[in-house]
């Protein structure tokens, strides 16, 4: 059967576009509706994070890390703090560890809610987006109760936390978890098994495992391709090895393993697991303990370099810190998970229709602040 080829059209999606999650420009070469090549152009949100870090002290780097992935600031902080504490050989007390885990998991739920809602919006389902934002607001209320900020927290400090939990936090969190758990089922009913949604996302943008590993894709995107790899289990940090939680893996529920539906569903299941972890952490949190106990007076690490990864909602976040003995980092590199996730788009989206490209972009759950730093 012969295929009719017209002239190739070059289209620019972005940088100003309602669907791109941030300021991103995708240059798309299409033949009619079928896309033949995608070239991402980055750098619209580049704020010289790494150069800044070479001019401020280690504590002053923390607010900068918040602003890289502004939708999951707690985990950004967490990654940096874990790396620094390993460099300085500080061990924090048990209460701090528990609070950190609670905050990180709540942040994971909030980030997934926004990512899934935005994905639904790209597909055309307007309502689930608003329902998820409503639930996310409640998590942001919890964060505001604790540290005063809704989006950029600067909460986890090297050696401890900035504030202890306020009175009433634990009860409010339990209330929120009890309220939120049935909402996930409601959301699954509304969107996940909806025939039109399945048609739009199943078998689309399949990412095989070896492609994912070669492109450095990690986190829910890699788990959706069938590989059970979670840094909270495999390269454990903090007290994650104490908690009992499953690692959801994509099984091709509605199509091939590793398609957009799998990436979507893995995130939904991960939210459920995070709820479990938060409950366990709250139950086993020690009541006594000073969150400022292990704050070092002076941060002057030995002359060493360290690379440490932690699990952020988008994948594995790595910090490569090299110190030269002074209190200012010599070099700090942040390996962002969304950077690697975006690099794979040409490979998996070429050959699909234009609407599919946007669906695939949404399913990768990227945040431009993290990619451009």
């Amino acid at each position, binding site marked *: 059967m012969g295929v009719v080829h017209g002239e190739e059209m070059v289209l620019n999606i972005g940088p100003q*576009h309602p669907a791109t999650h941030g300021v991103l420009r995708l240059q798309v070469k299409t033949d009619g509706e079928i896309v033949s090549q995608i070239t991402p152009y980055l750098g619209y949100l580049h704020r010289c994070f790494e150069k800044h870090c070479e001019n401020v002290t280690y504590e002053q780097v923390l607010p900068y890390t918040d602003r890289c992935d502004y939708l999951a600031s707690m985990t950004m902080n967490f990654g940096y703090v874990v790396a620094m504490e390993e460099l300085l050989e500080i061990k924090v007390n048990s209460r701090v560890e528990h609070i950190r885990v609670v905050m990180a998991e709540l942040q994971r739920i909030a980030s997934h809610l926004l990512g899934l809602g935005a994905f639904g919006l790209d597909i*055309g*389902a307007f309502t689930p987006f*608003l329902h998820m934002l409503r639930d996310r607001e409640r998590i942001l209320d919890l964060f505001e109760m604790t540290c005063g900020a809704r989006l950029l927290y600067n909460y986890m400090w090297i050696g401890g936390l900035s504030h202890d939990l306020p009175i009433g936090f634990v009860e409010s969190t339990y209330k929120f978890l009890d309220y939120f758990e049935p909402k996930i089922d409601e959301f699954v009913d509304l969107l996940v098994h909806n025939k*039109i949604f399945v*048609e*739009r996302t199943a078998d689309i943008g399949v990412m095989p495992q070896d492609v994912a590993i070669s492109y450095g894709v990690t986190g829910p995107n890699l788990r959706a391709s069938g590989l059970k790899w979670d840094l909270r289990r495999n390269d454990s940090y903090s007290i994650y090895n104490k908690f009992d939680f499953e690692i959801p893996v994509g099984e091709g529920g509605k199509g091939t393993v590793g398609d957009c539906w799998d990436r979507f569903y893995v995130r939904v299941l991960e939210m459920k697991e995070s709820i479990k972890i938060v409950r366990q952490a709250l139950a086993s949190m020690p009541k006594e303990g000073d969150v400022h106990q292990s704050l070092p007076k002076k941060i002057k690490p030995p002359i060493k370099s360290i690379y440490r990864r932690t699990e952020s909602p988008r994948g594995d976040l790595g910090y490569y810190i090299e110190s030269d003995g002074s209190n200012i980092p010599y070099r700090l590199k942040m390996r962002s998970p969304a950077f690697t996730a975006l690099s794979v788009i040409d490979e998996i989206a070429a050959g699909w*229709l234009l609407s599919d490209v946007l669906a695939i972009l949404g399913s990768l759950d990227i945040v431009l602040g993290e990619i451009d730093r």
Partner: protein
Amino acid sequence: MTVDFLYNLFSEFLSNTIGSDSILLISMLLPLVATFGFITIYALVVIYAELKVSSFIQDKVGPMGQGFGLHAGKFGLLQPIADALKLLSKEDIIPRSADKLLFVLAPFMIFVGAFISFVALPFNESVIVSDLNIGLFYILGVGSLAVIAIILAGWSSNNKWSLYGGMRSAAQIISYEIPAGLSLIVVIMLAGSLNMQEIILYQQGGIGNWIIFDNPFMPIVFVVYFISALAETNRTPFDLPESESELVAGFVTEYSGMRYAFFFLSEYANMFVVCVVAATGFLGGWQSPFADSLDSPLMGFFWMLSKTASLIFVMIWIRWTVPRLRVDQLMHICWKVLLPVGLFNIFAVAIWTVLIG
């Protein structure tokens, strides 16, 4: 109030003072002005309804205000008026590289296409601007003018996104006219006429006589028609031509101010037309469901408008619940699902009517 009725009325009183040509002119203009006024009021109401209904579905409150004249009015009743004023006062931008004549022509064409189908809509046993013998056929035919207008809008904007939107929309509307037509053929078969009033009168006698309950295949026919109607009016799940997240705003990307308002308005007008046709063909039109009680000329208005309003409500409901279909899936549904079902329906209903009657 058909034109004929008005002509006769005016000729009685005014034949001495003005010539019969001018009486004809007046009697034609009056209903048109009335229709235009009706469309305007209807547009305000339906925009408000969409805002509020969508807000409630999304667990929000929607436009709210303190009191009449303040903010958005009590319960946001002044919001649509505010929207209209805003659109009127916007700067009229025409892109430099756009084809000026076609660019300016497109909104007018699409509005004309929606407006002239109002001519054959029955609101009452006597209120219909023109009681054409081929009313249903006329509405179907005239509704296709929108296609040309959309292609013009997409092409003349000189913008790749608009072009995409225009092409998609054209394909969509043309394809979905076929299942719509096939469903209406069933109605015509049963009623035996193309005349809107006659179709309504065929369903006389209460809810049991409505065409939708005539035989077990009719609900399927109704569903096929309703889905095709959604696609005709570019509503979600078929709103790819103007889908926000994908194509910015589709074929209306370059339009602003009043020109955009025309597109907007004609979409709602189309919705109204399509729902009235559905109510006429399947739900008994302006007749009351309780046979012969609550059946007066004024109640006729009420029944017609309430049936139409509930169908519009269903359309809004579907828009905010269901995700969007992709272009090829859309075409697949039309040609591979609705078309065979439509054809099957014709035969099934025919055989049923002959055998069982």
